[in-house]
């Protein structure tokens, strides 16, 4: 009889971890989320920890998301969405089954990475220099206590989008991602994140991950160059909202892919004056394309969205109506929604001491009320 191939000892942790996840899901299904208590949250944390030790990264993140959603339910947070919870529970279940199937065929923990995720990205050095131009940027805050600013970079030669993110724990810099704009890219350069987010750059000593993330490490050399941002934006340009639907239909849509989303750039839009819905703790603003089709921008009423909400109000006025909008389009529930990232102004705008002339204003972190024309 043939000897079984030597298996990675780390794989031995996967089976018990998956069992624990399955048991937890079964219990949750039996008791129902209406009977969720603080103990349930503690249990999720424990299960997520087990998943973490078994290097089941995606599962751990989905469990963390489930914990956040159940906590919102317990807190009677108006942003709680039963449909969102349904989706998360289902993804945990699908992931558990998919990883279990892959574990049977795997000989090492690395074989599981395509489906289970990796704890840290591997950044590999890139030979030579690369020319990039920033097409959009946005600030974000995670439930796990991190704030960050992500710049979307168009790689001119490879004609693809990359991302560069500066992230810090909120206990270090506070809950406002806009603060990160004033921080230098690294200890070795006086160039701030805000300056980096406005312009085109030649990057040297680049380290890049397989999913297109540029590391902002201290040896990264950043030199200004001249590339028109519209070169990159042309690749994600949508003539109207129908084109956005086409884009979303073409996005990966498997059960484990999450909601389809796509970076889009659209010109000739009009933004309606935002309306605040206190009951649902959300701000709604309509965006119309050239043919008058309307898409909804929905922004939860949270402190980190204050800048965006103020900016949307200004963008609805004729004085600050942008010529174009760069946004993340996604399918949320039954609706295609836009999450605005950056506004395009044909004539440059001064948005601070360090950026005196910019065509892009990053709506989530740069207040237009302080900008000048």
């Amino acid at each position: 009889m043939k000897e079984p191939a030597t298996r990675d000892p780390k794989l031995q942790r996967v089976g018990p971890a998956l069992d624990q996840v399955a048991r937890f899901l079964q219990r949750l299904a039996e008791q129902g989320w209406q009977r969720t208590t603080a103990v349930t949250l503690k249990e999720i944390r424990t299960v997520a920890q087990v998943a973490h030790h078994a290097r089941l990264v995606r599962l751990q993140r989905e469990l963390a998301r489930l914990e956040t959603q159940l906590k919102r339910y317990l807190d009677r947070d108006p942003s709680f969405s039963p449909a969102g919870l349904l989706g998360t529970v289902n993804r945990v279940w699908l992931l558990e089954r998919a990883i279990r199937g892959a574990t049977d065929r795997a000989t090492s923990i690395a074989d599981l990475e395509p489906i289970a995720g990796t704890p840290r990205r591997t950044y590999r050095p890139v030979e030579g220099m690369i020319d990039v131009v920033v097409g959009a940027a946005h600030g974000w805050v995670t439930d796990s206590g991190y704030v960050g600013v992500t710049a979307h970079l168009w790689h001119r030669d490879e004609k693809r989008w990359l991302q560069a993110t500066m992230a810090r724990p909120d206990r270090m810099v506070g809950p406002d991602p806009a603060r990160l704009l004033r921080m230098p890219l690294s200890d070795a350069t006086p160039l701030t994140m805000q300056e980096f987010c406005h312009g085109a750059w030649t990057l040297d000593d680049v380290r890049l991950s397989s999913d297109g993330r540029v590391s902002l490490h201290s040896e990264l050399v950043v030199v200004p160059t001249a590339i028109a941002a519209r070169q990159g934006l042309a690749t994600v340009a949508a003539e109207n909202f129908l084109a956005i639907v086409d884009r979303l239909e073409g996005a990966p849509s498997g059960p484990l892919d999450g909601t389809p989303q796509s970076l889009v750039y659209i010109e000739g839009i009009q933004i309606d004056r935002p309306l605040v819905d206190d009951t649902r703790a959300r701000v709604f603003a309509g965006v119309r394309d050239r043919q008058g089709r309307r898409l909804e921008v929905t922004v939860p009423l949270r402190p980190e969205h204050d800048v965006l909400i103020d900016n949307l109000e200004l963008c609805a006025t004729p004085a600050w109506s942008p010529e174009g909008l760069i946004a993340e389009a996604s399918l949320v529930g039954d609706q295609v929604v836009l999450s605005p990232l950056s506004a395009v102004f044909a004539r440059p705008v001064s948005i601070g001491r360090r950026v005196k002339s910019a065509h892009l204003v990053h709506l989530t972190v740069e207040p237009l009320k302080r900008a000048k024309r």
Partner: protein
Amino acid sequence: MSLDQVLGDVRDELIALWGAGLATPGPGRADALRSLAETLNDAGLERVAGEVSQLAKALEGLVGETPSAEALHAVHERLQQLTTWEVQFRRAWALRTCRQTFEASKESVADSSRPPGLDATVVPLGVTSLDGRIVFVGELEGRSQPIVLHDHWPGFRGGNPFRQAQASRLFQDEVVPATLLAHKWRLRDHPAVQRRGRWIVGPSFFTRPDVLDEEVPRIVMPDDLTLRWSSDGWTLWREEAEHALEVAPSAALDFNLRKQRVYGPDLGARLAPNGDRHVLIAMADSIGLPCFPSVDPGAIRWTQPQAKALATRMAHRGVDALLTYLGCLKPSGRKRKSVPSQTFGEVVAGWLAGRPPKAGNEAAAVALAALGGAPAALVSELSLAEIGPTPTGIEVVRRALEIEDLAERKAFVQAHVVAFTRSIRRGGVVPAGRDLWALTALWSRLGSPSDPETSQPTLNGVPFDLDRLRLAAVNPLSRALRGEAVSAEEVEDALLLVVGSDDGASFFA
């Protein structure tokens, strides 16, 4: 019932089940599921209807007694499968619904497109630097209307920024400013405003000026300005003006005017109004051609005595003295705060190109820190940054030929040409054929100046060492005849030398 409503009912049931839990689903849940199955059946979703029926049946089995773990597990599996279907189907359905809605709705909205921009050809007249921005001044061709174009060069590449490629926001490309100013530009639908009779444009997101092949015609500059320097700065006096025209300061301009002083107080320059002051956008250089001293630190060149004096000063008094002289240090020699990321060359070049004086002051400490008291390296970098490219003899010849009226500059050009021919005779590199003919043409325009140093035979009147010229001509021809690889240009030059000479017979005798 519409499919939207059916999907809504499915979601409601799923939420109710997940909310209440499978162990205590509540009375009537199974009946509700069965009813939902019928609705799904009616809507044509038979397969899902079957799933929902099975779920209802399984759920019914749990009611009434303590359910077994296996039974609960089976119901949980069915519930998850139904949830997967619902999420996936709803996603596809939502996109389809959006598409249908968008296809149906085509309201007319107010036109939000941009107002039409300016379409015109710009003849650049000059350039200056204001508050760190680069400002080109030009004229609209055919309309004689002034236009001001604001640009921003986000990074200098060291050396002389005016003669090296710069990343330009306005042109959205890497441009060499010196080359840029020699050609006309075409604006297409460029956003522009008109104020006080001038067009003003800046970088635009959607368009950029195209640099045309057509060169800018040479315009004679008004030559009625007198330059005066006082402790308050530079002033220019125009004869008919009752008051001085104060020149807005720019470090590069100041630097150039210091050099210009030795050529005399009168100069030809083109000024542009800027508020209640004037900015100098172009100037005639030592041989009368336009240069742009506000942004080009090498626009006016050191005279030989000046360069020698500078070198002596550097040698005797060291780095501090030189930096003080250039304004990088306070007279007391106290260092100012540093910007360690910039190289000294970049800082000096930036300072010379008209960045605010503060940046220049920072240069000193950077330079001293970076060089660690190595004046030789500093001198080397500084000489590159300050003096700019030294004109070669043939460059003077080419530029002088472009000047229609050489009367005023004749002495200067003549001195250069005589020195150049001497350098060839003394073993300097023989220029290419077409350059030699340019030299002879200029020699003739200058009235064949006599050179007391020589009584050599001449080529078209220019005293040369003819043996060297013969070699220069014969060498490439003989190599070409032997079948060696010689460029067509080289052969052409050699033939020009042979056949283009008035006294070719004696030349190749």
